[in-house]
């Protein structure tokens, strides 16, 4: 193990880690928004849109991210649509993650007991009040574990974006291995970087989950 190498390349890993976080952040945000929109389309059964959303969900869930971004990055320019690497990355994560988020939210909404809704009706709440005071608070809490699992999943998927030259952690690692042949050291730095990013995130998400859990039925 070459420790001086670890020290020398540390700044590059920090930089790459920030890229991973940045792309991850925007990608997850895109996925959240896509997911929310799709979920409401499905929940309120908005006519044609509902069909489109269903097709989208299946396409997104049954194809790999690598092909999705290759298509966006190398395929689309051929028909005159040129998106930057970052744009492809965020759209790709949004496209993939959107369906996962939609399913998580929908699971939450549907898990709100019918009896809770009837209770709400029986005290005279209108539709908006029902959403605001009864359905949303419970749905959010129910879907939180799934949503936070999706956060971690999408953050890990950023490693695939290395293939379209996004200078994230894996990309930098691959470059360094090719340049200086310190394979063990580079892979160690890479693994540690992921641990540093994902462990705290999963602890924070776990904390939020517990804070929201009071909505659960229980004894």
């Amino acid at each position, binding site marked *: 193990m070459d420790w001086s190498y670890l020290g020398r390349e540390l700044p590059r890993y920090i930089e790459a880690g920030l890229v991973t976080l940045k792309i991850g952040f925007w990608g997850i945000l895109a996925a959240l928004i896509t997911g929310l929109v799709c979920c409401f389309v499905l929940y309120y059964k908005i006519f044609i849109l509902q069909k489109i959303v269903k097709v989208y969900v299946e396409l997104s869930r*049954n194809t790999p991210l690598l092909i999705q971004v290759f298509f966006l990055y*190398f395929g689309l320019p051929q028909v005159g649509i040129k998106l930057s690497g970052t744009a492809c990355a965020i759209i790709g994560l949004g496209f993939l993650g959107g369906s996962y988020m939609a399913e998580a939210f929908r699971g939450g909404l549907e898990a709100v007991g019918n009896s809770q809704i009837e209770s709400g009706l029986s005290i005279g709440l209108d539709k908006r009040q029902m959403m605001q005071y009864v359905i949303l608070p419970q749905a959010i809490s129910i879907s939180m574990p799934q949503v936070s699992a999706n956060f971690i999943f999408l953050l*890990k998927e950023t490693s695939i974006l290395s293939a379209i030259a996004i200078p994230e952690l*894996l990309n930098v690692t691959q470059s360094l291995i090719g340049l200086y042949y310190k394979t063990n050291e580079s892979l160690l730095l890479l693994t540690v970087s992921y*641990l540093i990013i994902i462990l705290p995130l999963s602890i924070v998400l776990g904390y939020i989950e517990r804070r929201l859990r009071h909505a659960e039925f229980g004894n």
Partner: protein
Amino acid sequence: MQNSGINVIFNNIGILLDGLGNTLLIAVTSLFISFFTGFGFGLLRMSKNRIVKLLTYIYLEAFRIIPIMVWLFSFFFFIPRTLGIDISGEVAAIVVFTMWGTAEMGDIVRGALESLSKGQIESGLSIGLSKLQLFLYIQFPQAIKRIVPGAISLGTRMIKTTSLVVLIGVIDVIARGKQVIERTKEAFWIYGFLFLLFFLMCYPLSIMARKLERKWES
């Protein structure tokens, strides 16, 4: 350029589908092995021994936290160099996918076994079944209905994840696609085709998993 537009797919279908063999080989082999090793791992996960519990937990979390890409790289380069054995990209991929599959499958098995109502198990005990009989006659037949749908959707995840093996030099369907693109420059059609191809492999499995799940739920 004699190929252009959508024709590029038909003209190169042979070479493209040739790569599909490797893709399926990796996914199917890994899934098959994982099904059995996963059962063992699932049972281990339910052990009451704290050390076994901790180790199996770490093993599972390792695959949940570290991207599969990183595992593939490690196994492809690091292990052969350290142990001095040559392993091909295909073997490295199968090893990593099987290890990952074992972890995930184990969790599915554990979840299925733990979800069985305590009452069913106590009923079994109360008519005097031995532990083995309990597993054979009660736990396994009931758990399998939850395991199979989970295993199928793990299969689709594996097929999707095989897309990464191209990055460790395995000549899979994507590698073949890239070779065709190199010659024809038809990235749009080839990647579009690959997109569709993966969809056609995974979608029927997803449907099947969902159908079984719904059927067995009641």
